[in-house]
């Protein structure tokens, strides 16, 4: 399990400033799908309870309906669980020295990248549309100096505040480097 007090390659005096996930609105389509796909057959079974009861007592139709229904509900349950796992494991960690971007794609692809705060050149917060404005969620882009790559915090809560905090942490990190004369500023990326 990941522990925020023991990050991979943790540096001395490094502490976690932000732990981010996508806004909860990202889970709404998953739960809406679950309610629709399970609720509709259940409502039909209640409305036509006499017919369903006869089906279940039939020596041929009963086993057939049972097997199909079991596979159907287990498949929906598994699909929903994988979507929630994907949401749960997509995280961004901002520490006093670096940004760690961990992305889970399905069950078998995982990418973890990290970026020294000293390499950050620019941060941008974007909120588009009525829903994002009302629920105050959106994207934050972190542009690195001299690199084409940029980190994209997609659909996070309070992007303006996150942008401000990252800008402040970047400034503090650069100040610390100037004082200590450290050499930093690179992106490391690992995939699984």
């Amino acid at each position, binding site marked *: *399990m*990941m522990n925020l007090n023991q990050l991979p390659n943790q540096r001395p005096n490094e502490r976690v400033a932000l732990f981010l996930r996508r806004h909860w609105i990202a889970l709404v389509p998953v739960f809406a799908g679950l309610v629709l796909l399970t609720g509709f057959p259940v409502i039909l079974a209640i409305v036509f309870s006499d017919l369903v009861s006869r089906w279940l007592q039939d020596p041929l139709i009963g086993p057939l309906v049972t097997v199909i229904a079991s596979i159907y509900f287990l*498949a929906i349950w598994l699909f929903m669980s994988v979507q929630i796992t994907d949401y749960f494991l997509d995280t961004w960690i901002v520490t006093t020295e670096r940004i760690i971007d961990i992305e889970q794609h399905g069950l078998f692809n*995982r990418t973890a990248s990290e970026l020294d705060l000293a390499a950050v050149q620019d941060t941008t917060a974007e909120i588009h549309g009525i829903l994002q404005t009302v629920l105050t969620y959106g994207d934050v882009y972190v542009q690195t100096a001299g690199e084409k790559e940029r980190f994209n915090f997609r659909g996070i809560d309070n992007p303006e505040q996150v942008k401000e905090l990252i800008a402040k942490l970047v400034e503090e990190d650069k100040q610390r480097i100037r004082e200590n004369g450290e050499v930093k500023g690179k992106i490391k990326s690992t995939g699984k």
Partner: protein
Amino acid sequence: MFEFPSITIPLSFLLILYGAFMVFFVIYSFFNVYHLVRYGLNNISLRALVLIFLSGTFILLLLSALQMMQYDWSGAVNLNKASSSLNTNLFGGL
């Protein structure tokens, strides 16, 4: 009405199909829980998530097993006779 050819298949054939799905389900569920436990943030919501997933899976499997145990799976089905049974019973009550 549509009529199946006169072929007899054991009812347990359905269980073989179900077993094939269960192999897929168990492998995916294992990797799902493994990823959560291996890479998730160690806190109460992770434990709650794993518990809810395992509990939901257990309840679904238990309900399925209880319903399946009510049937005699050792019998065989003649598709020709089954077609007339399906025609009569499938939507006969509507």
